[in-house]
């Protein structure tokens, strides 16, 4: 009886995650997501589709150094994914790292300045 359990245990190997050590190997196994990130600058800040879609006002259009910019505060983001679906530019994306945590409040806020198509 015990031999059966011993062999089963040896066959399954280590089940516990090795997370903090092998982060790159552990995380891509999961197709879950946490909070979105901004991966490219917005080209048309007049559309404001993302700010309208956001249910908790995590996304706002702000003035940054005299220019319009998209501000994403992930502290308010409930990861509903409406910005990812509705942005025609693809500004928002699900990041690969699902373990986001920051040591300061400021690092949760990202601001992307708007650019025009002609540069």
């Amino acid at each position, binding site marked *: 009886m015990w031999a059966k359990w011993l062999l089963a245990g040896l066959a399954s190997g280590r*089940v*516990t995650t090795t997370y903090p050590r092998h982060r790159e190997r552990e995380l891509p196994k999961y197709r879950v997501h946490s909070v979105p990130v901004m991966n490219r600058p917005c080209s048309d800040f007049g559309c404001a589709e993302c700010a309208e879609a956001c249910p908790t006002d995590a996304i706002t259009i702000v003035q940054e150094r005299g220019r319009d910019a998209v501000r994403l505060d992930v502290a308010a983001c409930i990861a509903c994914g409406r910005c990812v679906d509705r942005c025609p530019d693809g500004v928002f994306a699900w990041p690969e*790292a699902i373990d986001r945590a920051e040591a*300061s409040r400021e690092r*949760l806020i990202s601001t992307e300045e708007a650019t025009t198509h002609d540069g």
Partner: protein
Amino acid sequence: MTADRVGALADWDDLDERGMSKRLAGYFGHSLHIRHIDVGSCNACESEVLALSNPYYNLHRLGLFFTHSPRHADVLLVTGALTAAMAPVLRETYDAMPRPRLVVAVGVCALHGGVFANSSRFMGPVDSVLPVDAYIPGCPPNPYALLNGLRQAILSREGVKLK
């Protein structure tokens, strides 16, 4: 790594199971005890916090343990939107903890308020009441994010010596 992969991943070699214990040894005596307090949560964050102690995530291998008394705790793990009724309780819990003490805010409700931000009974984010060492966004954050948040909190105390 291809171009369409967003949010780069890189291995950390600074923190494995033995490394964590070595770091903790300097200022927390080899292990870290966590007191979890729910100040008005919907229990989604609790579900993820509970998952940390199952055999899969197994946070005990890192020298992290849950405790039931704030007097035994090094870390205060705060989940939920801070309600008027729980604000004095949170303060008392924090005051009962021995120094050095860390505060980790978990989830959108503790960080900002999220969907409860406009409620009349919401007293504001946790960092308006207590000094917060690590912020974990997500609704709810997954257990990996919780482990990362605890890691950030521990690393923030590097070089701080006990008197």
